[in-house]
């Protein structure tokens, strides 16, 4: 507790999740989660299917179907749970979707230009002109090695699974969030796409931003080195440690965690 108190007093903490409880359709999914993320950190949240990883991401991003039943989420000193999803985005929270949605007929240019200018308006900046925006898009395309054709198509329409995930990283690079949450961004990616996605994340890393990588497998963490690894199981963080925890999990599997928990419960 002593350590936690000290960290709470530290106003350098970007995200504080405290004893978070949440339910979907009356079923409790998150059963008391506490996590703190500081600028410059990369956190990995690992856990078996159904443990609540995506629900946690959904709560931070503000999805309506998740009901927060207890606890707090504070982002840069502000109560995140009171904010509309678009305001959370404008405050600097980005969610890389596990299943990015297709929006037929809406070009990536129009979509991202609208988004960027909403962010700029929020910061009291003038909107970007078409040429300024296209220049920004070109720069970011190169940075995240995205096929330039992708950016000329409708949002995710007809994209392959890998293209959709790359497109998430591309959008992240344009919006330059303070906190990016990547929800199973590695699922369904071949090794080349995985490398591109991971490179993108690493290139965008700065001392003043943070990333939460949600993943089932350790493999993404070969490319993105986390500072902290949390293991989520049955709606609770059951273990938090450094990057070596990911390796241990990969070697021993999630059953090892489950058995550990049972042992603890018995003793």
């Amino acid at each position: 507790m002593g350590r936690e108190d000290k960290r709470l007093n530290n106003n350098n903490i970007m995200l504080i999740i405290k004893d978070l409880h949440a339910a979907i359709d009356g079923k409790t999914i998150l059963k008391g989660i506490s996590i703190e993320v500081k600028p410059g950190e990369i956190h990995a949240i690992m856990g078996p299917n159904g443990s609540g990883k995506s629900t946690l991401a959904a709560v931070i991003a503000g999805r309506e179907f998740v009901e927060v039943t207890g606890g707090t989420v504070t982002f840069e000193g502000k109560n995140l749970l009171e904010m509309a999803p678009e305001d959370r985005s404008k405050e600097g929270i980005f969610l890389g979707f596990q299943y990015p949605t297709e929006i037929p007929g809406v070009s990536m240019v129009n979509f991202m230009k609208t988004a960027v200018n909403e962010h700029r308006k929020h910061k009291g900046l003038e909107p970007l002109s078409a040429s300024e925006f296209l220049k920004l898009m070109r720069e970011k395309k190169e940075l995240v090695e995205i096929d330039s054709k992708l950016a000329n198509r409708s949002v995710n329409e007809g994209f392959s699974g890998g293209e959709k995930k790359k497109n998430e990283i591309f959008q992240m690079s344009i919006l330059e969030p303070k906190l990016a949450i990547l929800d199973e961004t590695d699922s369904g990616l071949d090794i080349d796409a995985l490398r591109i996605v991971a490179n993108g994340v690493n290139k965008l890393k700065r001392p003043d931003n943070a990333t939460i990588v949600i993943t089932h497998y350790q493999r993404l963490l070969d490319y993105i080195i986390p500072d902290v690894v949390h293991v989520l199981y049955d709606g609770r963080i059951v273990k938090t440690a450094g990057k070596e925890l990911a390796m241990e999990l990969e070697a021993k599997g999630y059953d090892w965690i489950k058995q550990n928990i049972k042992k603890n419960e018995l003793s």
Partner: protein
Amino acid sequence: MEKDQDKILNDVTSGEYKYGFYSDIEMEQIPKGLNEDIIRAISEKKSEPGWLLEFRLKAFRHWQTMKMPQWANLKIPTIAYQDIIYYAAPKKKASSESLDDIDPELKRTFDRLGIPLEEQKYLTGVAVDAVMDSVSVKTTFRETLAESGIIFCSFSDAVKEYPELVKRYLGTVVPYTDNFFASLNSAVFSDGSFCYIPKGVRCPMELSTYFRINAANTGQFERTLLVADEESYVSYLEGCTAPMRDENQLHAAIVEIIAENNAEVKYSTVQNWYPGNKEGKGGIFNFVTKRGLCRGDNSKISWTQVETGSAITWKYPSCILRGDNSTGEFYSVAVTNNHQQADTGSKMIHIGRNTKSTIVSKGISAGEGQNSYRGLVKVLKNASGARNFSQCDSLLLSDKCGAHTFPYLEVDNQTAIVEHEATTSKIGEDQIFYCNQRGISTEDAIGLIVNGYAREVINKLPMEFAVEAQKLLQISLEGSVG
């Protein structure tokens, strides 16, 4: 474009019907009701020749034998035809000769609608015929167009100045016996636009007619006749608005288009009649017959419509493909929100050989709106090599709205190829949340998604009007989700 996009976003925050004001203009009206005396009175007001009065009377006598059509998927309240005023005109003599003759209040009205009647003020390259209630108040650029031999004027002026042309073409595409509303229009039509593009002329500017209903208890019955002679081209636009009133008002128009050999006509509509309030009170009944005749070989007629207004819409812009290798197109976006109803679509009649037609219809339903697509593709016996592609998509924005499709196919030639595709989709919460997560509000997200859905049609509109149409789509769907 840049500025326009931002303006669209800003306008969305104030999404009421913007054109619902009433102008206090001194009007000259005839008594309400419909009989032969009324028709004679209208004809007399316009100093019409005897043949035109005869045409009206024949139409009226025929109309009296007809019943209002019941086949559309619409709930139409009883219309008291004897309670309508069939002629109402701004009192001050509004000739097209000089702006000084026009009532300043009338000028202000069109200024407010964004349709300045001074030539130098309007969007460059667009000539306008402004029609209020029963008369045309001003046609701009008449002289400029006349230099290329193009006739663009009010229907009334055309009857006076070009009686032979009007006589030759009037009623040849939509006969006065065609249907209940067409017969009514043929009996009482008051004004509208006339346009003739001579042989080999490519019309140097967009032509447009802006229709405004202003007076209460009146109906608007205009007629547009557009003739494109051989090898000519014209792009034509119409827009329309009306004041907010609790009573319904009837608008029953006719548009006839004739395209001769190698001629091309592009006809675009941005329809924004008052749709009624959120409870479904008031609004315009928009019962319109629009038909084009591809009379010449290699001729082409293309209809594009963005329909956001009216309490009830009943219209089927059609093409009769008589010339060999002629082409008909229909691109439509129709929005029904709150209690609006629309039964709209197209008819493509293939008569000539190797004729082609395309139908792209996009319905958007929100609130308790009901949206029906009704289309007929007919291939006659001798129309060998005919080809049609039809696509009708429906987008649903609420649980209480409805989308219906009634496609009819009648194919009497074995070489014809006819394709039909249809989809129905709902705006997904996932799509909206995806936009939200990128910083885009729900209202703007719906605008983006709907405009994306309608893009294929909007892209067919001339640029200035595409922007207008995008904005309209967004405004007419304001507050319709969630």
